[in-house]
């Protein structure tokens, strides 16, 4: 009884008078790990012809992911990838996992990465599934951007226009 009186509530941050009902949320160890030790954070030069940039999401939704891939021209394999994300821990982890998985793979294979695989790897709860969806979209957008660059550079010398974000 006394212990009840003298224990304070741990994890108070989830219970607050700030709107919304509270869900029981568990950060899987992998998500926390990716957050604390993020892999492949960074940027490549957008104008480099070997780099494809995928920019997906919207600040209004609370999630923006920028995924960049560097592709080796002859083999068509992705030699390096990096990301930057504005979003919750699950979004950061999803994009981090995405960069890890695309490295060393050919572009066609990478398009088959599904959001469900990412979600399973990170044990994402249902409310966070959209983070993995966004990561899948980011991969596809990066590949698409690279191919658009390639076809353009075969035609003209223009770099990708700045204002366009990829289609979701």
């Amino acid at each position: 009884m006394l212990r009840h009186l003298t224990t304070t509530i741990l994890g108070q941050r989830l219970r607050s008078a700030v709107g919304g009902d509270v869900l029981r949320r568990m950060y899987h160890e992998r998500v926390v790990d990716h957050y604390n030790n993020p892999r492949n954070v960074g940027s490549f030069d957008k104008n480099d012809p070997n780099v494809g940039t995928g920019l997906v999401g919207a600040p209004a939704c609370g999630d923006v992911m920028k995924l960049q891939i560097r592709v080796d021209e002859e083999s068509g394999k992705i030699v390096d990838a990096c990301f930057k994300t504005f979003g919750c821990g699950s979004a950061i982890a999803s994009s981090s996992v995405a960069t890890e998985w695309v490295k060393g793979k050919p572009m066609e294979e990478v398009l088959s990465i599904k959001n469900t695989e990412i979600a399973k790897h990170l044990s994402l709860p249902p409310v966070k599934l959209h983070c993995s969806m966004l990561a899948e979209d980011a991969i596809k957008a990066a590949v698409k951007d690279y191919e658009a660059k390639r076809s353009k550079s075969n035609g003209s010398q223009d770099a990708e226009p700045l204002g366009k974000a990829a289609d979701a």
Partner: protein
Amino acid sequence: MASKLLANAVRRNLCKPTGASFLRRPFSTATAVAAVEPLEEESSGISMKGVKISGRPLYLDMQATSPVDPRVLDAMLPYYLSRYGNPHSRTHLYGWESERAVESARAQVSALINASPKEIIFTSGATESNNISIKGVMHFYRDKKRHVITTQTEHKCVLDSCRHLQQEGFDITYLPVKQDGLVDLETLRASIRPDTGLVSVMMVNNEIGVIQPMEEIGKICKEFNVPFHTDAAQALGKIPIDVDKMNISLMSLSGHKIYGPKGIGALYMRRRPRIRVEPQMNGGGQERGIRSGTVPTPLVVGFGAACELAMKEMEYDEKRIRELQERLLNGIRGKLEGVVVNGSEESRYAGNLNISFAFVEGESLLMGLKEVAVSSGSACTSASLEPSYVLRALGVEEDMAHTSIRYGIGRFTTEDEIDRAVELTVKQVEKLREMSPLYEMYKDGIDIKSIQWAQH
């Protein structure tokens, strides 16, 4: 005799160091601050919900709840252990002494708001008091009055009660607020109709801490003879409240926000002119028939003690908390740019600091701030993807609404805790900005608002 032995055993137990550092330093939540002090708990620290931390977090979430003041606990314990009678038992000493304690607590609560003890009804909390005020008043006057005015930034229980009334056929006006969070008095005046039965505006907002212009609103309500209800859960004991000066008819109070126990609150109901309500809890007619049910004596005694302490220490606390708030804000602003305070900076309760950090998302920041217990107004922390409705009502841009953090400072917060919170916050924000594409775009000089985002 037996109870004395029991009480001694209790006292011994309380003072015995059981290994939990909380008991050793009951006034401090600063275990994470003194990083050099070895904890006698598991050497690996505490692990919960997949998160490992070295000790208990700093508590900076005073708007959610507050620790019970040990003096309040001292006042409550006898009523659990030896004087445990039901205050409504009329036939024996246990009942009489319990009733006496309840009445004296009632006087303590009423003294804090300059009311008469006869005008205080004890309830289970501010949520119940809000329900009684809104639904009770409108149901009582349902034949003549069909309109309620409230604001968009009210607490969920007020908004939900209004929604319930709407379903029953009443009209509700949700007043917008200005960018600093304050109600526009002219808009309020214009929305009052002949059939307006209640105006409900909270005194201090729980999310952003702004203090509404209570006396002016009270004047307007008096002019039109409309009852004025206010949710003062966050305001009680922190800013001076005078129900006569502010012309308040109904007021909801909460115990656990002023270092009192959880599970108790009160409703102030004016007697001159008398405001009538339909009871929401039916039963034996306790609390003047407004709220039936056994009045929980220990909780009520605790609430009363907390109010008395608040009256004595209000000024001292306010000065101290204001200094701590300035220390926090200047510490963060000194090292980071893109820091925006949400809500009016002048008309604000010092213990509530709601800040938005540009280019950083709230939930990821909270994940990094696991050694500090704070709260966020961002989407991910609520069930839907929508950011906090209070911030939206302020007109905060959506991307900024996702980034807000609310720091709550209280009576037991120390300077070391503030310094450590500043240090941790700055570190996490910098790390997240490194990871943020929006920050990168901002640094490159790209105008983020001009980009066409692909909606998901």
